[in-house]
């Protein structure tokens, strides 16, 4: 039988502590019956929800309750970090490269798993009303898709858009598709890891550096805004001055130079450990559903839900989970910059 006296104990103890502090309440109260303990926890949870106090943790034998509402986790974030400010879409998972650190294990052999023009169009349409301010298309290599220009057009029609690419496929029909894209609303983000070929090619394949540098030049000549993103082992992210100087000579503005650390995801054997507890979510959509973050869009532990639509619900779900994790962990998340 549920022990109602626990709520009296809880109210009493909350009354003795300042708002914002927590109490740990023994929910076993002399019983070893698992069902009874679960009922006690349910009762406390119900009371907390209704009374504006926060159940921050529930263990097998005790609950931790914060006096008063938890601080507004989302309001505490920089506006740019609020989940759902950016919407990431994996257009496809196949790639002309097979980088050894690829966070989603893309390669020429990988299944395409295309998101498809219809879904991209609907996402772009629902994005702005759902509070999204920027769309980001990534893969795999998006330029492998025959309809990439259509996907981009449906995005740029609604919001500023960034398209991530390895920049190696700007030829023939693919170059024509690039040329059809909206230069006012689209930023191309091209991957390049080093100022000289060795390091880049060691991870991304022979001659890939040369072709990426050529792609950057072509995109700039075509009048596109180009960002360059480097993926480096964490220890190297502190020695980037020569690389940045090189990017300057290519014509890449300092604010368009992104340096990020390798994440331990996908094909990468090591790298920064990213978990839902330590990672501020970036709402990410793939053909399979909604994910916590683009760097972990194949990591089952970071799958959020299958239903993509309505997008506003998916974003609300990610935010809810984030607030829950934050409250439970109550520790600062490492922000893993992605674009």
């Amino acid at each position: 039988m549920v022990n109602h006296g626990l709520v009296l104990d809880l109210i009493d103890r909350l009354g003795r502590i300042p708002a914002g502090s927590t109490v740990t309440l023994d929910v076993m109260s002399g019983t070893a019956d698992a069902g009874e303990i679960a009922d006690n926890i349910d009762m406390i949870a119900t009371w907390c929800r209704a009374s504006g106090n926060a159940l921050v943790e529930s263990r097998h034998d005790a609950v931790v309750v914060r006096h008063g509402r938890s601080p507004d986790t989302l309001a505490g974030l920089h506006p740019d970090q609020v989940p759902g400010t950016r919407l990431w879409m994996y257009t496809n998972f196949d790639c002309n490269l097979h980088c050894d650190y690829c966070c989603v294990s893309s390669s020429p052999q990988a299944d395409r798993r295309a998101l498809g023009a219809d879904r991209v169009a609907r996402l772009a349409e629902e994005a702005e009303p759902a509070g999204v301010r920027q769309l980001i298309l990534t893969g795999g290599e998006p330029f492998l898709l025959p309809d990439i220009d259509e996907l981009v057009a449906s995005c740029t029609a609604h919001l500023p858009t960034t398209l991530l690419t390895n920049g190696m496929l700007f030829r023939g029909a693919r170059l024509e598709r690039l040329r059809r894209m909206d230069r006012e609303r689209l930023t191309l983000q091209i991957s390049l890891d080093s100022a000289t070929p060795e390091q880049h090619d060691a991870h991304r394949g022979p001659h890939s550096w040369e072709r990426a540098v050529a792609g950057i030049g072509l995109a700039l000549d075509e009048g596109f805004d180009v960002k360059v993103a480097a993926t480096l082992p964490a220890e190297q992210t502190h020695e980037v001055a020569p690389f940045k100087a090189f990017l300057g000579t290519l014509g890449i503005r300092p604010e368009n130079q992104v340096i990020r650390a390798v994440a331990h995801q996908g094909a990468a054997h090591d790298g920064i450990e990213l978990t839902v507890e330590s990672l501020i979510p970036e709402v990410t959509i793939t053909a399979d559903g909604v994910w916590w973050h683009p760097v972990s869009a194949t990591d089952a532990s970071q799958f959020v839900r299958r239903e993509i639509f309505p997008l506003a619900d998916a974003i609300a779900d990610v935010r809810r989970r984030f607030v829950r994790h934050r409250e439970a962990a109550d520790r600062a998340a490492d922000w893993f910059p992605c674009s």
Partner: protein
Amino acid sequence: MIPASTVPRLIGSVAYSPNVVTVWEGMRAYFTGTDTPIDFVLFSNYGRLVDALIGGTVDLAWNTNLAYVRTLLQTKGACRALASRDTDVVFQSVFVSRAGTGFDGLEAVRGRRLALGSRDSAQAAILPLQYLHEAGIGDDDVTLMRIDSDVGKHGDTGRSELDALRAVLDDRADAAAIGVNTWQAITRGEIMTGAIESFWMSPEYSHCTFTALPALSTEWAEAWLADLFAMDWENPDHRAILELEGLRRWVPPNLDGYGSLIAAVAEQGIPDRW
């Protein structure tokens, strides 16, 4: 020379919860931005607070209903109630029992064990006894279990009421009298359904109120009240204070709501100071 209006007036309050400092720091910050700045001083009990108001140490006292009635009696009616919380003008006492025990009104308490809160709590002791007396039930007609915790704080901590409820749950008492604020707190989410139920709710009466003596100028008091009533639940800074102090807005006091307590204090011979 500092203009008179910028000299902060001193408000006295009793330290009945760890949040009191946060509340009054917030109030002080809010009034710093007005023409009626305030500072505050905390007392350990209402007896001291009323003494300080009458002695002129503080300009205003944040009084319970009992402290207000005390001040009224000691100043022969000269003090003024200025403002209350919205929750103070509709306060009630609630009689509760274990669910399903068939209590259906005050009369059912006759011959049973009734747990009361602190003897200086208007809502959990003084007024419940008054309502029983008015219903023709004398102190000898019930077995009273008085739970005198935190005497001096006029029941503000709610601790004695929680103890009275425990007594009912543990079958050490058949019924308990508590304040409506405690009743609302324990029934949030309807978690007490099937465990404890209320069987009688008192008429509404008035609870806490800011109390001043005639020495406080009416002009200043009016200006201060205008600022107080301007606190807005929709404003997050104000809301943080209002929420902690348990109100949505400040309202004028309801003086008629003190009649029952004035009668009870007289009839029960409640001492002048606790």
